[in-house]
């Protein structure tokens, strides 16, 4: 591995590492606009200029296009470098509108940040600024303000390299260069939100988040998207218990820096009218839904009670259900129902959007494989049941019929299953609890609690713990950390894992053993 020197720090980095990344490893932040770790290098903003030693003496070069090689020395804080950064800022802002008060990027804008860190010159602009097209609606999710653009071409490269739609382009020359859509085109892909994220300034902004909240009010909590089996890593941006947006969180092994638009939209459901907020028994609000459910389970007799694991529920919740059955009614039957319908398959691709719109199908498979004796949809249809307890999945829509004389449902949203259920228990949304999910790669990933559960909701593993207690033996799943540890202790494929070990990027677990796969 080549040894490079950044300021006074010597370090070894993998060959070919770009010097912006190498400097980051050395703890030095090199300002940049056009460089993006998941796009090609364009080298057009010149903000990343650093001093390096050449045979002709110290010279300025752009760090984004410099690759680590043995003996490479860069200096990022010399007077020369500082002067260049200041001039670059001055050029970038020559025609920049004074839009910060109405610009949604304000607060996370690289022009603002770098001006304060590296600019701070006195304006010499006496001429009128070059005006460009403002407030252009270029797609379902994106607004374009060409005046604010710094011509970094990130969005153009995104269209060329990631979505392969080639819809944005820089047109004209000199200070009349303007970002825009090819005539007659609109953004048509499902990854538009990423444009607002990668645009380092306020030229491309999100329509969904437009004027909703100033970003400096928002707190960010690292979580995962539960919109499909991919499990893109996200930040949940929230303020005072209200979630305003999801943004992708970098994880090179899962979603790089991206996420899809349907995933972004999912936060809308958290506080929507479709949310289940109150426990009901036979349609009437009830404070005793869980004891009542326990009573009905006992009345039905263990042999005629079924439990359906949730492919949308967390590992902890599914584990809680298995443990509850094991401790209280070992004769009860356990099922799981895969969910992938025609619409979902239409809304899928080979990049991030999986046809399986359930975050934890792999997790349910893992637990079912470990527990054994878990029936599928066909078994569920064939079973003779008096009562069916359903965890989060909309089983009625999936199977196409109401399967038992009585249904009990623990879930977050109203759907055909809640409509058919005699007992409905509200449970926490993924942003309202600590939990883990197993994605399609077999990566265990953590979601963290960002806000408090709405209404009467509690995390599903706690609701099931209470149900177990009402039946006589609580499965001991109140605390997610301990619940995960309990799972990791007995399930070989999770051995050695704990919440801390999962870190921010999750951990791949061992693949299913061939023997287990054959037994299925």
């Amino acid at each position, binding site marked *: 591995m080549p040894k490079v020197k950044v300021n006074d720090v010597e370090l070894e980095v993998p060959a070919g590492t770009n010097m912006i990344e190498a400097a980051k490893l050395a703890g030095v932040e090199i300002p940049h606009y056009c460089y993006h770790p998941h796009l090609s290098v364009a080298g057009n903003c010149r903000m990343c200029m650093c001093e390096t030693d050449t045979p002709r003496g110290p010279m300025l070069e752009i760090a984004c296009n410099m690759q680590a090689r043995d003996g490479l020395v860069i200096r990022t804080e010399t007077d020369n470098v500082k002067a260049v950064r200041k001039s670059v800022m001055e050029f970038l802002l020559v025609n920049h509108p004074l839009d*910060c*008060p*109405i610009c949604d990027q*304000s607060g996370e804008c690289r022009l603002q940040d770098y001006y304060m860190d590296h600019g701070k010159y006195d304006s010499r602009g006496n001429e009128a600024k070059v005006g460009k097209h*403002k*407030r252009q609606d270029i797609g379902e999710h994106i607004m374009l303000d060409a005046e604010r653009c710094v011509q970094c071409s990130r969005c153009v490269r995104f269209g060329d390299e990631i979505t392969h739609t080639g819809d944005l382009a820089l047109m004209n020359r000199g200070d009349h260069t303007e970002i825009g859509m090819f005539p007659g085109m609109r953004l048509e892909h499902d990854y538009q939100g990423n444009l607002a994220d990668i645009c380092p300034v306020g030229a491309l902004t999100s329509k969904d988040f437009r*004027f909703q909240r100033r970003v*400096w*009010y928002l707190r960010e909590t690292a979580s995962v998207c539960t919109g499909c089996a991919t499990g893109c890593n996200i930040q949940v941006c929230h303020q005072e218990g209200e979630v305003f947006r999801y943004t992708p969180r970098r994880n090179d092994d899962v979603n790089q820096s991206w996420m899809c638009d349907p995933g972004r939209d999912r936060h809308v459901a958290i506080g929507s009218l479709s949310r289940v907020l109150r426990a009901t028994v036979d349609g009437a609000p009830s404070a005793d839904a869980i004891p009542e459910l326990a009573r009905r389970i006992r009345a039905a007799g263990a042999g005629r009670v079924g439990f359906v694991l949730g492919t949308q529920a967390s590992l902890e919740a599914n584990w809680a259900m298995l443990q509850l059955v094991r401790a209280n009614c070992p004769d009860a039957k356990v099922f799981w129902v895969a969910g992938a319908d025609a619409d979902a398959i239409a809304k899928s691709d080979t990049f991030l959007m999986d046809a399986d719109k359930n975050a934890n199908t792999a997790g349910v498979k893992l637990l079912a494989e470990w527990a054994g004796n878990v029936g599928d949809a066909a078994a569920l249809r064939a079973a003779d049941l008096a009562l069916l307890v359903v965890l989060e999945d909309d089983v009625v829509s999936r199977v196409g019929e109401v399967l038992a004389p009585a249904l009990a449902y623990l879930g977050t949203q109203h759907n055909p299953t809640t409509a058919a259920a005699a007992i409905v228990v509200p449970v926490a949304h993924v942003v309202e609890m600590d939990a883990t999910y197993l994605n399609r790669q077999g990566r265990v990933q953590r979601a963290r609690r960002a806000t408090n559960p709405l209404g009467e909701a509690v995390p599903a593993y706690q609701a099931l713990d209470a149900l177990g207690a009402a039946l006589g033996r609580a499965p001991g799943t109140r605390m997610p950390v301990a619940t995960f540890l309990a799972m990791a202790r007995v399930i070989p494929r999770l051995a050695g894992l704990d919440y801390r070990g999962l870190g921010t990027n999750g951990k791949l677990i061992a693949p299913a053993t061939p023997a287990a796969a054959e037994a299925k």
Partner: protein
Amino acid sequence: MALPKPNKKLTGSESSYLVEVIKGMVITLGHVVKNIFDQDRFRTIEYPDVRKPMTPRYRGAHRLLLRPDGGIKCVACMCCPTVCPARCITIVAGENPNDPAEKFPVSFDIDMLRCIYCGFCVEACPKDAIRMDTKIYEINAYNRQDMVHSKPYMINLMDRLKPEASEAYRADHTTAPAGHTPDEAPVAGGHLG
């Protein structure tokens, strides 16, 4: 925490107190005599018929300014709610499709019960959209809700400052009229719209 003891020893005459009391009385009576002969020295202002002129920098009730074309100057940038130490400004931003300013405050409320009249909001505003130069200091109402000044109220406050409006404004602002109910609260403290 124990307070430090004053270490100054009282002199003999001080410790008897009587001498000091008489000294104080002499000063007071001196002022009484002076004031009797020079009555300009103590001006009792016959408030509310007469009002004290406020200094130009006096921070009174907030007003929201309009542009020459009649649109509101505020663009809901959220600088003032951000800087407000009392957290008493609540703005809901919206988009105005017909205005090049794009963004405007759909609602703009200041809870005057929480405001500490620091003037930071005025300092922070990049649009000179909010000012406290109204010199209005009687900020009162019959209920808490009316102490929340709304956008229409704060815009109309400007009209009251126009010379032709000031007489009427003063007339009805000097004291609460008889039979004044919160619903028709016409002046400082009520929602006008």
